[in-house]
């Protein structure tokens, strides 16, 4: 009787076993990689908008403050997306015939709002508040990436729960103290106005965490030279901080009475 199994049958059997054992593992690993990849999170994927609005042009090249459009970011949970009239406050004067701005003019004339596609979204069961993050000195770029470099806006970070929790468990890594004082001719500038009455114990040129957030963008817009830390933050790079920054973070947490264990309670964000 001829051999039922040829010698290569062994190899096939081994392979089959390996595939049988490996496939589920592979599937799980692939699946989790896909869910964490930009394919799912849409992080770093530029999103088409009805108007190809460039943050790079408006923030970096023209030097418009974040708060000109996102005007409630310091006070309220929502940062606010500007009304058409905010766009038109400039564009009724400049680029009045630009075909790119046709939807804006159209909206202004007809009263129908522009429908922007949401770029940064948290799920419905997450309750996020911009104002408290800004007031604690968390820079816009920490979560949104280098917005001032985006010609078409994308989501700068994956916005996954693990990513949120990284900061909520280790806020010292993100509560940077990198632009502690005002410089140059801007000592009486806008940042100063916002600081007034807020914390009188601060010396006139020492900035509160909230003011530091916008001092960074002022520097970016005015083309001032950024310190290394500022540059890193402007890029949204906050990993591997030098020790002095981590210490500064701890100090700020102490000052502000931030309790890390409380900060990662479920009901801080979910309710």
């Amino acid at each position, binding site marked *: 009787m001829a051999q039922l199994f040829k010698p290569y049958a062994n190899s096939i059997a081994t392979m089959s076993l390996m595939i049988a054992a490996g496939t589920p593992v592979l599937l799980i690993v692939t699946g989790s990689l896909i869910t964490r990849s930009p394919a799912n999170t849409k992080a770093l994927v530029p999103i088409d908008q009805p108007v190809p609005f460039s943050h790079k042009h408006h923030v970096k090249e023209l030097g418009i403050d974040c708060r000109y459009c996102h005007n409630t970011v310091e006070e309220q*949970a929502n940062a606010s*997306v500007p*009304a058409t009239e905010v766009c038109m406050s400039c564009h009724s004067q400049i680029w009045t015939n630009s075909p790119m701005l046709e939807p804006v003019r159209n909206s202004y004339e007809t009263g129908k*709002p522009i429908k922007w596609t949401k770029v940064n979204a948290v799920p419905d069961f997450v309750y996020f508040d911009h104002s408290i993050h800004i007031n604690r000195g968390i820079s816009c770029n920490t979560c949104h990436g280098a917005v001032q470099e985006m010609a078409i806006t994308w989501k700068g970070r994956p916005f996954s729960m693990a990513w949120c929790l990284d900061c909520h468990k280790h806020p010292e890594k993100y509560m940077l103290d990198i632009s502690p004082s005002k410089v140059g001719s801007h000592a009486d500038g806008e940042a100063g106005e916002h600081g007034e009455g807020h914390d009188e114990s601060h010396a006139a040129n020492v900035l509160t965490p909230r003011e530091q957030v916008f001092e960074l963008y002022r520097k970016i817009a005015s083309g001032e030279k950024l310190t290394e830390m500022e540059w890193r933050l402007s890029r949204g790079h906050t990993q591997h901080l030098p020790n002095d920054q981590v210490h500064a973070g701890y100090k700020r947490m102490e000052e502000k*009475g931030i309790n890390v264990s*409380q900060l990662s*309670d479920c009901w801080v964000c979910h*309710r």
Partner: protein
Amino acid sequence: MGKSNSNQRDGGVKIYKGLDHFEAPEVFEPLAADEFPDRESLKALPRRDVLKLMGGAAVLAGLVGCRYQPARKIVPFVQQPEGAVAGVRKQYASAMVKDGYSVSLLIDQVDGRPIRIDGNPLHGSTLGSVDSKLSAEILNLYDPDRMKNPEFRGDPTSWNDSLLKLEEAINSAERGAGVAILSETLNSPSLNRMAQKFLKNYPGSKWYQYEPVNSDSARAGSRMALGESRVAVYDFTKADVIVSIDSDVLHEGPFSIRYSRDVASRRNPNGEMSRIYAFESQPTTVGLASDHRVRLKPSETLALVQVIASSLGMPGATSATLPASVEQKVVDAAVADLKGAGSRAVLVAGGHLPAQVQAAVIAINMFLSGGSSQAVTYAVDPQPLAVDQGQSLNDLVGAINANQVSTLIILGGNPVYTTPGDVKFGDALAKVKLKAHLTSHPCETSKLVDYALPSAHFLESWGDGVAYDGSYTVTQPLIEPLYEGRTSLEIIGKFVGASADAQELVRETAKGFGDWNELLARGFADDAKLATPVTVTANLMSSLAPIKTSGIELLVLPDPMIGDGRNSNNMWLQETPNPITNLTWDNALLLSQKTADSLGIVAPYDKKSFAGTPYYGKADMVTISVSGESLEVPVWVNLGQADDVAILHMGYGRTTAGDFGTKHSEEKGGGFDANKLRTSANPVWLSGVTLKKSPNEYVLANTQHHNTIDYKKEDRDREIYKSTTVTALKNGKPFGEHAHEAHHSDRDYNEFGHGTEASIFPGNDFKDNPKDNYQWAMTIDLSLCTGCNACVTACQAENNIATVGKQQVLRGREMHWIRVDRYYKGTGETLDKNNPPIIVQPVTCMHCEQAPCEPVCPVAATVHSHEGLNQMVYNRCIGTRYCSNNCPYKVRRFNFFHFSQRADNVPVLKMLQNPDVTVRYRGVMEKCTYCVQRINHSRIVAKKEDRLIKDGEVATACQVACPSGAITFGDMRKPENAVSKTRAESRNYLMLEELNTRPRTSYLSRVTNPNPTLEEAH
């Protein structure tokens, strides 16, 4: 408190959830503990089908989790309205009509939609609190069954056409002859102005007013006693002794919320406590708050009042025989107290009582104080055009039947349904040539008229009104009308050629009340001074006509939740249990045990047919016959009700009232129409009623046995409810004379010797972590709770709690995060089935420091926060329900079906949801969060200002709503905080403390102030 028994704790007091709990514990206990009381019906399913279904369900459940987040749009404004910020909550003052008078409210508005109604703390009508009906009014706004556009005999038409036709009819009649307008109680000065103009322009026209719940009787009594119509305004803060004569003044009427707060202010044992006697035909919130509760038939109230009058030595008072159910010594004690308190004593008569009783009560109050009572003022009725509404209705129907009415415009109300049966309003309506009805919902009346016109909700319209204290209130719109609704003011304004803008009409009226913007911001103008001296008619007491009565007496009262039927389609109110009976979705004929026995009523738990059927069983039905009408209704035995008195609530048995209000079938509920039995001569109280048991049965959805805490008989002496008297409290007995357990203020040890150190969860000492800023705690004062259920509805509105419908209520699946347990209190193994002491206890998540729910969750979906909150994480929950099983307080609610589906599918209901709280999906456990959204909001506000949250800054929804202020909430780490003070009080206790769960919600034992000459009632 009964006689002490050395073997039993607390004098052998036992509490029972219902008669079944007492009579048939062997039936009650296992079934109350059963999560699936109708598990017999499940057994009908073959095992293989069960496995198939389970497999299918598992697959589908897995797939439910796999969804891409859809791309969402951001739609900003074109022109940003001033102050409009997405997601920011703003409050505006407004006002609505409650029982004929306006009450001042604060409305929360987010993104242009009103989402919540609170009381206006500045105004005396609400003092910042609400009752269930006011909270639930927000749902009436978003009710998808509302009348949406004008209809001409069922076909859509336009407002222009409708008004044109009506104006033509009005103008074609000579000087308006034959034109009649029927409105609800005319409360608005602006509408009154328009009405007067209308009547002047068309002198032949007539204006009528009718509402089924009115103050006709009180007005008649006032005329009898004082010679003119006055309204009684009580000041219970100054009342040392309150004698309630069948009154529900803490739940019904325009000032009920204020009165609850005022009464509560005098029920604090640390201050000077008032004493309350309640003589009543059925247990009411007043009776529950009282020190002595005595049963009495409505017809016997006159005799009682006469006895009190003659005992007080009132000149001209004729003596009467004391009703059999009232003990002489109780009256003696009450009279002695009244005498002692003088001008600080007050009698309160129920609005449904006959005029003689009302008059006698006024006379006694005047006599007690020598004409200057501190506790009651007889003020001029602030109503601009007050009439006797029963008379007004009779006049109208008389005119119609005499063919004197050719055009009838009905402004609001639903007279075809709400008028007494013998009026036959529907038949009369057919005789009117042209009739129109302005209505919030398609209803019985709008079906029979030519023009059915949609009315605007008060949150959509400009208006004004007068409050019970005479102050002028303004109603401002919080949202553009959702549909084509308009108000009475706009319609009558149009007929008289006034401005089409209702705001202008109101502003003109408001000219005399100071700055318009200030008026809008506050919501009201200062009180008018309406109190002028009055004198009592001579010989009043000797000329009181006796009340003729025979047989069983029937009271037809507004439902505590549904009212006269205007809230029929409000599912929140349908599902909020009736405060005393705990009935939902239906009304029933309430009878005392003795009366039910005499009719041969068999309790559901005693039925042979009970075996194998779901626990709730079926209620026997009876046929009520009175003055030629009869109605078959199910019976509910209401312990504490007077014998030979039958009570049926109105508002049910609707034939056209939307999805939830209309009585479709026994399965969906809907109740029985009590208006049929009423007559125009006796609209509320009828005697000579015959009851006959019918062979039929009816399923009633009652929640009294749901979420029972201690169902095992041997456990029943757990002191989950503690009470004492003010004398005992002063003697250091905060939990009653016979309680042998002292109070453990430090809470480290309990009676079984377990302390924190003995815990198997070491390190859970939340109190002492120096890094934590706050430790939240709640205290509920059982002395103040009247069981009105305002907290239940307020919580439902705040926390997006779904309603489940009658069938699911029957299975014990109602979703309320806070419930008010009602117990009957027995002594030893006995229960006074005639008049048991009735106690109420709000129960919500205790936020145990050592929560039994937490260790049993396999997915850590319920965990503890560092501020002492027992967190429920919906997105982790997989629905094992182990937590609920292990919760000794039974406060967790499981979403068995997609109960929030309706909110998902009906667009207009999406607007109702509170954006700060997740709308939960099916298969998820949920429970009280201590309103964590409010805590988080305040925390962020405080942090931005670099300070800590102040005491009182966070108030939970139930706390804000509670009319008597029974709930205290706050951070218990600081001893100076209100909640810490309540926790330090000697009468503070923890529910089931012996389980060592260390709950954050604690209770203050109930303190009564009984007359020392009488045995304590409860």
